[in-house]
């Protein structure tokens, strides 16, 4: 029973922080200027504790389990949340409900932690909802903006619909196997049509969360309407978490049905990459643009997931780490600009390099990483994903993926071109980036470079699996 405290340490810490914030809210209203650093400190503490005193183990008879890989995944998510609190600090400072915002965000994070650790469909479902419903509320945090509530509405309704289908799938699966435990279920899967139907119903919930085409349609609208911090959270943390659990589900639970999900992932990844890219081509709003780009990135993640071996898992986990750095850097820049000037259009960025070289370089670095250009880590990430995806020797498949990299490069370069090359008589004025936002952006930039060039990071992730 003593193990409980250690094995569930991450969750307990997050819960503690949630309650701490609750008390702060209920008690004296602290000003944002003092509160935000405090929260950032707490998040940093949360991140750091994840590196120490970890223990693998099962709790509650397998409902909850933890191992080194899961701890790494949780740390990646904690890192992401910490970075969000830094890079979006300009927006957060202005938010009138700062503690509530973080209560919700941490609840969602907690949900993700539980989700990654869940060993049971019930637990999985509950934590999925815990990771979703607060985010929907957060999407509405730009209370004075019409689009914000529209985004929240779209999100809550879509996810309700999606979880309805998920539940239906779970119920069928329950009927067909009689268990909700992952560990027991795997042996009971025989690939009968009903199970397949159930699996597809179940899978669509993951697909919905990950914004896999054709279940992606909510993504862009929600990203565009939500506050930047929420968009960042949605596009990075929640995607990462779902990708992690999907890895587990596919590679552990549904391994007997691999023949099916291999093809499924292959088809969906191709459609996803192409659709995401083609839509991203014509976007003007930077958040919407990043939404579609992240859809395309998900296509790549799926490519890596098709590999059922260790390479598949490690490349996906590694890519998500890289993706967190890259996407958060991009969102950080977008947040800094939109919170100070309200401009979110790519055309507004024209000539920005003259006035804001720092932001421009960070943005460039981020976009290059997203495009998979060396020496950024995105290059390595993409390459490992493709390496994993090509393991079955299907050249056309990685060929399509590689060609999609070109399309994506086209639109990433469009932004770069606006920032660096286009002339503009009235570029965005000099933006004073706050200290913590600068720190966040620098951390992201360093991460983008270091995660690739320091090969031991990938090796470490890979090493866990042995």
């Amino acid at each position, binding site marked *: 029973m003593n193990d409980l405290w250690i094995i569930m340490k991450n969750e307990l810490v997050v819960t503690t922080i949630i309650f701490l914030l609750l008390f702060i809210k209920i008690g004296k209203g602290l000003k944002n200027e003092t509160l935000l650093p405090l929260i950032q400190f707490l998040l940093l503490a949360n991140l750091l504790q994840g590196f120490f005193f970890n223990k693998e183990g099962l709790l509650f008879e397998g409902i909850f389990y933890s191992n080194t890989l899961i701890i790494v995944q949780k740390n990646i998510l904690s890192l992401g949340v910490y970075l969000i609190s830094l890079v979006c600090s300009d927006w957060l400072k202005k938010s009138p409900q700062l503690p509530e915002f973080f209560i919700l965000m941490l609840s969602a994070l907690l949900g993700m932690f539980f989700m990654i650790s869940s060993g049971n469909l*019930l637990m999985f*479902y*509950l934590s999925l*909802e815990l990771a979703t*419903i607060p985010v*929907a*509320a957060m999407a*509405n945090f730009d*209370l004075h*903006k*019409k*689009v914000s*509530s*529209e*985004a*929240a*509405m*779209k999100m*809550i*309704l879509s996810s*309700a*619909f999606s*979880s*309805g289908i998920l*539940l*239906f799938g*779970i*119920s*069928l699966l*329950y*009927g067909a196997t*009689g*268990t*909700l435990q992952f560990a027991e279920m795997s042996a009971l899967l025989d690939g009968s049509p009903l199970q397949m139907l159930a699996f597809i119903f179940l899978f669509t919930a993951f697909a919905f969360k990950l914004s896999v085409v054709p279940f992606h349609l909510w993504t*862009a*609208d*929600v990203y*565009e*309407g939500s506050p930047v911090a929420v968009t960042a959270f949605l596009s990075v943390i929640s995607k990462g978490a779902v990708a992690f659990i999907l890895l587990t589900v596919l590679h552990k639970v549904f391994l007997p049905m691999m023949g099916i999900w291999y093809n499924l992932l292959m088809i969906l990844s191709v459609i996803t990459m192409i659709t995401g890219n083609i839509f991203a081509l014509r976007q003007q709003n930077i958040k919407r643009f990043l939404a579609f780009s992240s859809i395309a990135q998900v296509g790549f993640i799926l490519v890596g997931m098709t590999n059922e071996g260790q390479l598949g898992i490690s490349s996906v986990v590694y890519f998500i780490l890289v993706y967190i750095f890259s996407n958060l850097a991009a969102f950080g820049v977008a947040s800094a600009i939109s919170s100070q000037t309200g401009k979110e259009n790519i055309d507004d960025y024209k000539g920005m390099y003259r006035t804001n070289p720092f932001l421009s370089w960070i943005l460039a670095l981020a976009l290059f990483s997203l495009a998979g250009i060396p020496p950024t880590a995105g290059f390595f990430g993409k390459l490992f994903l493709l390496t994993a995806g090509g393991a079955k020797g299907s050249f056309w498949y990685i060929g399509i993926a590689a060609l999609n990299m070109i399309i994506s490069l086209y639109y990433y370069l469009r932004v770069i071109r606006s920032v660096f090359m286009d002339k503009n008589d009235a570029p965005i004025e000099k933006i004073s980036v706050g200290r913590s936002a600068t720190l966040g952006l620098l951390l992201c930039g360093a991460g983008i470079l270091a995660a690739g060039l320091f090969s031991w990071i990938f090796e470490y992730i890979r090493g866990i699996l042995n």
Partner: protein
Amino acid sequence: MMEPGLYQILFISAALFFTGVYGFLTRRNLITMLMSVELILNSVNLNFIAFNKYLWPQKMDGLFFTLFVIAIAAAEAAVAIAIIINLYRSHNSIDVENAEDLKY
């Protein structure tokens, strides 16, 4: 007329499920869409209970699942309604087609 059993209940629940889906797809009022979602969730609950009763009675997995789904449905409905009301304030309407600023 057949003796009621698992398949009958599954039929009911599936029918209810797709009725809810139909409502979700066609209702333009956000609150009625929410009501459709409730139908969907209830059909799932029915499924769980039926499976628990007829196939796997040794444990109460289905029953508990149902309980938790009901709890979550409540939470989801609460947040959804809050969002809808907020939307109503800014749009003066809860017609889903009036909230389509975000597109393409």
